[in-house]
């Protein structure tokens, strides 16, 4: 089915980031001072369950980051199908039914009829004003009013049992692996996990995973016959939009940090290590940047980008590419406004480390500045970098929604929670209220941000020895 692979800028960067994370993970696992805190993280119940939730989001985001040109179905047999101009992701391909089943306009979650009344022409030529049936939602029902509740319940129960089944299978595989690793019988391992006697709270992880899998399965089952979270103004499935927005949220939260990290680390350490005029210059730079209100700087930059894009419209091959570049640019400009905090922290820490005995000793031995920074200073500030990265994430995801509302966020054609809220906001005035778009985006965003917040608390407690001791 796959045609040519398309690598968008943000796709490349997100996989680069993944590579970084893996490399850092391998690096950290070999060093006790980095491994110890992570051990604390996975031993905390909150840490483990939020990790499972975050992993779910990351998987969806990564699947959505592999883009390609789909092959257009050929009309005549025997003729080789051709690549179409549109770009879709692997995730789009997996949820093709969700993507392609369009209704006419709004419909409520799990509805069988359209939200608005329409004039319907009956078979005998007479005209009736009523809520028309949906093209896809509940289309398989003979008598929508009578069968609806039973059918939804049936699909829900099927989903529930499938979810339980998958959880059982996954849980058993996990238990078998654990039993092998601990060198004990399967029964003993299962008992230890289920009674919650393991050091790493596997039981919590399993329960979280189970809940997620059941939710996924129920959603899949219900989506086969209905629009789980309704449809929006142009009839697009809201559930699909909310899922697609995951990638945007994750990208904003992570790429921004990736963009700002090199500058923040380099300048922060240099300012603290060299002091003198280097310090003055760097301090001046970040005070200046900091004193411009962030939203206004972003607004100004995005405005300029819009003008540039409208004046150079020919440079962009497709809408997707254009939206993608705008997203990347937004990450960069968000990075520019947010690196100063980390830079200041690192400057202070580097100043302290500079006076430590082993750095003085290295200097006395004639080790070069570059070597000292690389070997002695950088490893000792890594935990600060990590804590900041994790702490910033949730704020950035929330910021995206606000920026999109002001029209200076991601491209209006891109799926994002901010754009969903923005379009749903106007519909609150309708009667009856169109609430599902808003609820869906809020729910997905809330889950991600809450897990990220809880996870970052665990990470901070684990990495900050001062806090650890005071508890």
């Amino acid at each position, binding site marked *: 089915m796959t045609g040519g692979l398309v690598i968008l800028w943000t796709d490349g960067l997100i996989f680069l980031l993944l590579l970084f994370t893996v490399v850092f993970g391998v690096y950290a696992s070999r060093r006790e001072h980095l491994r110890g805190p992570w051990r604390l993280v996975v031993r905390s119940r909150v840490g483990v369950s939020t990790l499972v939730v975050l992993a779910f989001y990351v998987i969806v985001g990564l699947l959505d980051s592999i883009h390609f040109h789909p092959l257009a179905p050929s009309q005549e047999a025997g003729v080789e199908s051709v690549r179409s101009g549109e770009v879709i992701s692997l995730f789009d391909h997996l949820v093709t039914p969700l993507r392609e089943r369009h209704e006419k306009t709004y419909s409520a979650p799990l509805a069988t009829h359209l939200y608005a009344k329409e004039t319907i022409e009956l078979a005998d030529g007479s005209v009736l004003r009523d809520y028309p049936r949906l093209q896809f939602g509940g289309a398989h029902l003979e008598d929508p009013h009578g069968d609806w509740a039973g059918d939804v319940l049936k699909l829900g129960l099927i989903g529930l049992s499938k979810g339980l089944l998958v959880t059982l299978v996954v849980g058993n595989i996990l238990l078998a692996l654990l039993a092998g690793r601990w060198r004990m019988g399967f029964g003993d391992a299962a008992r230890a996990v289920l009674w919650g006697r393991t050091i790493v709270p596997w039981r919590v992880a399993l329960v979280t995973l189970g809940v997620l899998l059941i939710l996924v399965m129920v959603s899949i089952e219900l989506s086969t016959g209905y629009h789980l979270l309704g449809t929006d103004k142009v009839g697009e499935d809201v559930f699909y939009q909310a899922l697609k927005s995951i990638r945007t949220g994750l990208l904003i939260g992570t790429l921004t940090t990736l963009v700002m990290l090199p500058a923040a680390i380099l300048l922060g350490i240099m300012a603290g290590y060299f002091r003198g005029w280097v310090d003055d210059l760097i301090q*001046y*730079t970040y*005070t*200046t*940047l*900091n*004193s*411009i*209100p962030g*939203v*206004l*700087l972003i*607004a*100004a*930059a995005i*405005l*300029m980008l*819009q*003008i*540039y894009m*409208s*004046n150079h419209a020919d440079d962009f091959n497709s809408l997707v590419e254009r939206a993608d570049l705008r997203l990347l640019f937004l990450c960069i400009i968000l990075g520019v406004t947010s690196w100063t905090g980390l830079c200041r922290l690192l400057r202070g820490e580097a100043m302290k480390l500079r006076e430590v005995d082993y750095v003085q000793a290295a200097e006395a031995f004639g080790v070069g500045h570059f070597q000292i920074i690389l070997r002695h200073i950088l490893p000792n500030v890594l935990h600060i970098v990590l804590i900041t990265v994790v702490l910033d994430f*949730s704020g950035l995801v*929330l910021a995206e*929604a*606000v920026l999109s*509302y*002001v*029209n*200076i966020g991601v491209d209006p054609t891109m799926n994002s929670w901010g754009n969903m*809220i923005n379009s749903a*906001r106007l519909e*609150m005035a309708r009667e009856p*209220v169109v609430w599902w778009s*808003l609820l869906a985006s*809020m729910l997905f*965003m*809330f889950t991600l*941000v*809450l897990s990220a*917040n*809880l996870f970052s*608390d665990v990470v901070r407690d684990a990495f900050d020895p001062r806090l650890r001791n*005071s508890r």
Partner: protein
Amino acid sequence: MIAYILRRILYAIPILIGVNVLTFVLFFVVNSPDDMARMHLGMKRVTPEAIQGWKAERGYDKPLLLNDSREGLEALTDTIFFQKSVKLFQFDFGISDSDRDIGYDISQRMWPSLAIAVPVLLVGLLVNITYALLIAFFRATYIDIWSVVLCVVMMSISGLFYIIGGQYLVSKLLHLVPISGYDTGVSAIKFLVLPVIIGVIGGIGSGTRWYRTLFLEEINRDYVRTARAKGLSEAVVLFRHVLKNAMIPILTGVVVVLPLLFMGSLITESFFGIPGLGSYTIDAINRQDFAIVRAMVFLGSVLYILGLLLTDISYTLVDPRVRLS
């Protein structure tokens, strides 16, 4: 003291110049004045005369940085950069694209912004500090744990949701106050109640958590142990000793944001239709009115630097250990 303040003000000048250069690069170099003129006059079929006229009207018809046609110093001063910068430093913001005096608009729209921002700040402080003290009093009990959970949950909800939810519940379902709008004088109160309440609720999560950490940090200090050893009650220890000492970081945190209150809240104001500086900025962004955005960037920077200065001064006033030098 005066010498210190003077020096700090002098230190602010290079920063403002830096801000100015940065915004200039953003607004004029990335896109030339010609691009902007074309954008405003409509993309197609723009006569060069129309562009020239638009530029001349706004003083954009000079070279950007260096004027070759002039001699000596004039080559530097008779440029867009110099002319526009000097005017900004004189707080003369010029006219907007809709031909209104920006300075006048700002002075008018400042008051609605303050009418929301000041109550939000004061009520928010009161609520957050009270709640945080309560948590500190019941520390390490279930009240503490669940309060922290509640704070994290409240922090994780987007501010937009508070606004939309609040508007829907209070204005549309209960019909207690109008959904949006503004009025002058006392009748403005009915328009202000909801935004203020929502602003306070939206800030409880992060605010309370932050103050709780401050209080807990103080509670572990030696002087608190001494106070307890003297036999003082927990309430006296908390209110007279802990609160007083924790006020230093709280106060300085508040002083930093004081000047920025003028800028108003972008989102709240535009949702509630309040004609403050926040909605002014948003409208300007949506209309792509560069003169206004540029003026607001400059104003925001000045106020931020003022905030930093006030913070340093307030440190010496509340904490006698800090001496300005």
